């Protein structure tokens, strides 16, 4: 996958496992620093997402991915705070998916 080889390393360990994780991280922090939500609001969502995942997955942790929980929490929060509507988010995802398809075609 293009880009994976370019992930920076410190002390031989990756801070993020994939570029999208770093973007999700930076996006949450940047939105908070822009005072669009208090960190506790995001943290509360993240706690909820993690708890829901753990309930749904019982003893099978094999599909655990922290930043998937993070991104989901962020999607829910930005809609909740009125930063975008579910429809706008839906549209953006469809657009990005289409652009991705064309890129790989």
């Amino acid at each position, binding site marked *: 996958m293009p880009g994976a080889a370019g992930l920076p390393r410190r002390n031989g360990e990756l801070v993020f496992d994939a570029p999208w994780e770093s973007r999700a*991280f930076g996006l949450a922090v940047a939105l908070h620093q822009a005072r669009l939500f208090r960190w506790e609001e995001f943290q509360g969502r993240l706690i909820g*997402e993690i708890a829901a995942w753990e309930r749904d997955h019982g003893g099978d942790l094999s599909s*655990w991915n922290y930043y998937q929980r993070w991104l989901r929490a962020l999607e829910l929060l930005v809609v909740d705070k009125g*930063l975008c509507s579910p429809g706008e988010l839906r549209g953006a*995802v469809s657009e990005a998916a289409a652009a991705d398809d064309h890129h790989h075609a």
Partner: protein
Amino acid sequence: MSSQAESPPPVAGTFPQPEEDIAVRAKALEALLVEKGLVSTDAIDQLVSAYENDIGPMLGAKVVARAWADPAFKELLLTDSNAACRQLGIGGMQGEHMRVLENTPQVHHVVVCTLCSCYPWPVLGLPPNWYKYPAYRSKMTREPRRALREDFGLELDDSVEVKVWDSSAEIRYWVLPQRPAGTEGMSEQELAGLVTREAMIGVAEVEAPSGRS
């Protein structure tokens, strides 16, 4: 603090679904919010760069080394951790309320966030995957000695009290590990080079430099 134990179910069909490509979803969310002028790509780039390159355990290691070398600084670190770190120009997000716990021959402290992944970013950077893993969080809380032994190879004598600290709320705990023997006369820089992230979370001890005993 508002907290959500449950996330409301997204309206069916309108919300990105978990099985949709995660990288596409991340890209879409960023693009949408940038387009709305709420954030800039540059701001995100800078944050990513800061946490990939500049903010990490080497900062905490400096604080530990200073505490080992300077008893007055150590006292300040234990009584007002933020003030001590500020003296070294260290502080910031997720470190607004830090509290450093001193490991001694009698007491061994270890830190976990039981609900998510709270961690003192200014001194340790972002948490490693294992710290965020559900199994670490539950096992370290319920059976710390076993977790330390089985998962981290750290065997503690029965006479040592193990204390587990939950960083879920406001306070970000981290550990001042014991200074190993054989480090007399080392400079602060050399001492800092011995201190690992694992030791500052409490899942390891600092090892004496090789060649000295």
